[in-house]
């Protein structure tokens, strides 16, 4: 009972996390949510887990739950990876803005430097 409660709490936490993430990564959010709900169901009705495990050829119900947990972990890794990519997009935008602004300033000051020469020549 203690283990079932602890696992349920952890999986509930994942459902909340997946719900919060679904806008940023809809696919990962929905898959994580589905896997977590399935996990809670099987934690509380282990007989179904065993039946499902036998159907899937896994063997024991506990193994099936373990596999679901692994799948959830992989989805969370994927989500983190996508977040890192999103961060990289922001860094790129920022670096590009800095680069272009800096170049425009240099270009401006260079043309200002050349101005008196042009006037003197004319």
């Amino acid at each position: 009972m203690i283990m079932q409660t602890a696992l349920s709490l952890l999986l509930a936490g994942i459902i909340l996390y997946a719900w919060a993430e679904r806008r940023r990564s809809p696919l990962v959010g929905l898959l994580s949510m589905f896997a977590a709900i399935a996990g809670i169901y099987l934690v509380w009705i282990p007989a179904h887990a065993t039946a499902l495990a036998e159907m899937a050829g896994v063997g024991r119900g506990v193994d099936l739950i373990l596999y679901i947990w692994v799948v959830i972990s992989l989805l969370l890794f994927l989500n983190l990876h996508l977040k890192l990519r999103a961060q990289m997009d922001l860094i790129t935008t920022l670096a590009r803005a800095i680069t272009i602004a800096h170049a425009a300033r240099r270009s401006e000051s260079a043309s200002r430097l050349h101005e008196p020469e042009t006037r003197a020549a004319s």
Partner: protein
Amino acid sequence: MRSQYDGGVCIVVPAYNEGRVLAGVISDLKRDGHQIIVVDDGSADATAEVAEGCGAFVLRHPINLGQGAALQTGIEFALARGAEVIVTFDADGQHRTADIVRLVEALHLHRADFALGSRFLGSAVNMPASRRILLRAAILFTRLTTGLALTDAHNGLRAMTRRGAQRIHLRQNRMAHATEILGQIAASGLKLVEVPVTIDYSRYSLAKGQRSGDLLVILLDLFARRLHP
């Protein structure tokens, strides 16, 4: 050799640690009288100094972002400066400057917005067999994903009109940009032509270029972009 269509042509050269060969590339481009923008992609060597010394206008990324990011920065800056035609040109010395004129003339002749260099219509000097296989796979992949029936893919020598360049928004910072740009060209619905060009493979350019292992990275990058639009 200058073209009658040279007005407003801007050459964008993305460069990362190319200090060894860049002087030769820029000198050739300057000799042909082109406006040159070198995008130094956070190089650790003297790439920027060499480019400036040769008379190119240099943009410096504060950190290394990748060739795709450098190209996009160069294209945006060239557009802001009023370029009418933008040519992308690799910094490793594998392109020939004479081909630029052919690309730009092809844009005008065919009223196209994109002219893409093709080494398979032209020639590829010293191209290893492994590179040929890799490129054939890239051509097939491009056809399957974009619908474009091209003879070459991942050729860094391209020309585009201002209108065409405004449709390019590269978000693939690294090598996958070469596939992404073709996807954006196809999506733009604008006309493209392929132009025969020559690629000179040297030991240096082969060492800097793509390897077969990069194919997997490119595929993963493209797939990840689908998950995170």
